[in-house]
């Protein structure tokens, strides 16, 4: 009886020590769920979700403070992926979905005020005070944050045109012929 108890107690102590050690040794830095959510978000950093960037929104979702349908750049696709990950219901997007766009500066009109540079969250605008500014197209995420600050309204958003490099094979569709 005593030996049985002793053996059980010893087992408990050893296993407890092992678990305790493992929890310190293999501690996960950061919140893995937030990172997973953030990986789904499009990283446009536009703030349309009401949070100052994708990471804060991811944190809010993970904390259960925010709904999963607030990110317009992510689209319905993003909502579906989030629903999958979190086991929640798929909901229609809060805003309308837009085709992917990039910003274009009308370089004739630009007065070089640098306001757009300060607005761009991903440093996609190049320019200097009183010099013409331009957008580095491959870096622009299409967040529209630079459009409003421009005092001479020379920034416009343009949908990305299809070209040979981004062209995709279409989903096969077939015309259904009417029976004669």
């Amino acid at each position, binding site marked *: 009886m005593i030996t049985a108890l002793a053996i059980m107690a010893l087992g408990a102590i050893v296993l407890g020590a092992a678990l305790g050690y493992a929890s310190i040794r293999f501690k996960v830095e950061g919140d893995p769920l937030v990172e997973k959510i953030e990986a789904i978000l499009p990283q446009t950093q536009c703030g349309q979700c009401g949070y100052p960037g994708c990471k804060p929104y991811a944190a809010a979702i993970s904390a259960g403070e925010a709904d999963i349908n607030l990110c317009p750049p992510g689209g319905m696709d993003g909502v579906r992926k989030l629903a999958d990950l979190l086991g929640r219901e798929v909901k229609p997007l809060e805003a309308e979905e837009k085709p992917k766009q990039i910003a274009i500066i009308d370089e004739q009109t630009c007065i070089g005020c640098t306001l757009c*540079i*300060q607005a761009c969250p*991903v440093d*996609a*605008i*190049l320019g*200097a005070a009183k010099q013409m500014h331009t957008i580095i197209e491959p870096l622009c995420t299409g967040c529209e944050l630079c459009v409003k600050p421009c005092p001479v309204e020379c920034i416009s958003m343009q949908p990305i045109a299809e070209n040979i490099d981004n062209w995709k094979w*279409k989903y*096969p569709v077939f015309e259904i012929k009417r029976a004669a």
Partner: protein
Amino acid sequence: MLAQLFRFKGGVKPQTNKTISVQEPIAQAPLPARLFVPLHQSIGGAPNPLVQAGDTVRKGQLIGGADAWVSAAVHAPTSGRVLAVEEHVAAHPSGLPTLSVVIEPDGRDEWIERRPVDHQSLPPERVRELLRDAGVVGLGGAAFPSHAKLTPARSVAMEQLVINGAECEPFMTCDDMLMRERADEIVRGIAIFRELLAAREVLIGIEDNKQEAIAAMHEAVLRLAPDYRVVAVPTRYPAGGAKQLIRVLTGKEVPASRRSTELGVQCFNVATVYTAYRALACGEPVLSRIVTLTGNVERPRNWEVSLGTPMREVVALARPRADTGSFLMGGPMMGFEIPDLDAPVVKATNCIIAASPGLFPPPPPEMPCIRCGACAEVCPHELQPFELYWFSRARNFGKTQEYYIFDCIECGCCSYVCPSHIPLVQYFRFAKSEIWAREREKQAADAAKERFELRNARAEREQAEKAERLARAASARTSEKKAPPERTNAVDSPPAAAAGEPAAAAATDADAIRKAAIAAAMARARAQRELAQPKNTDRLSAEQEREIAAVEARRGAQPATPEATAGAAGSGAPAGPQRGE
């Protein structure tokens, strides 16, 4: 010398329809009134244009320089005048435009100075560079730059070099005719590739329905390089797929995730080898290719066509019959419908087939998959096309990758046998391009995230620095406030007036010093600006250069108002976004 042959799994035996186009020898196609030479004709980086409208070019002159290691140069197919460098419809299933050089031939067909080289006297890196600059790419249809395939793996010795003359696609006979007529050049070209790869053995695989080509190659090999082996492989589509041919000849299986050099084997098309030989031994870059014109035409034949010739003019040579509805580029199994006949012949155009409803009846409507497994039986890569189909159709792309969609070579065997007439390959192409698009998006998102985080870190750092500066200024002010008492006494004392003079002098002195310092800084900045060679301006297109000249002229004309000079001085320092305070 009977070699043991291996088998690849699956495959089909469609009607080959090859005899119609091998009745006549290869003919030289006439030059068109205008050539539209696309700059991007190979896999990899798009070459930069090196000519502008108005330039005269000679035959073989470089008009597009390779832009990266995996990229291949483009040349003027004949002498003439460059009319424009503009967007022109591409030989691509999308029918979208691509940057092309429009050349008006002058009819003289004047060559640049051709410099034959002896590849044996050059280091291998130099030979690879020469091949890149001669625009040698895989002419079997994939157009992958050949020089990039010519580096042996470091750890694995090259055992076999496989030369692909199988040409398994129905209708296509361009490689067949090339082997019949130009076997010597092919065999000499093989020597170049063999040396670069240091391959132990050379195997030339030709389908056994091309007896003339086998005989011609055999004869050339006996004369020039008796240790190469010409092997007749059983006729079965897709025996000419690189991976299938490697499997048949060597028994090695190359997975999608690995390069064939890692298994000690590499494969090249016969036409590629031929162009490599011309490039080195004759100094002639790739300016034309053999194109099979066949299908529903009066005169099926192989033509040697200058790259950039509009397809409309090429197909006219074969006189398509009246009921021709559309044209296919490539074979009937793997090719695609040409959306616009204004598209030019490019390095990947191996065959143009005139299609009529009689020749290729419109596919019957797609019916549900009955899970008969026929597609899995014929798939040469032992995939399960029906599973891939389900998942592609449901847009479940993660699952398609689990079922190895990227091992699919889009050979079309599965669609060919499907009793429900499901266009399986179209679904796979759709799924693959969606996966690629997502991959690109993911990369862009990761880059954006990184830039966003860097920007935030920078903002924080700047704020901290500013706070520190302010704190330092504040502490300085408080210490100053402590110091003054002695001075306040001195202010109303008479000597102070006298002391005022030297103080003023010192102030003007300080001013002068500061001015001199500013002037010196400006001079330094100017000198620096003149010294600095901007890195991104050494390969400008002619148009860009013109724009820059116009801007410079405008700048020069501007009156040197103080503001303008200030602005110019400011531009000396590259004020990136970090300047935005």
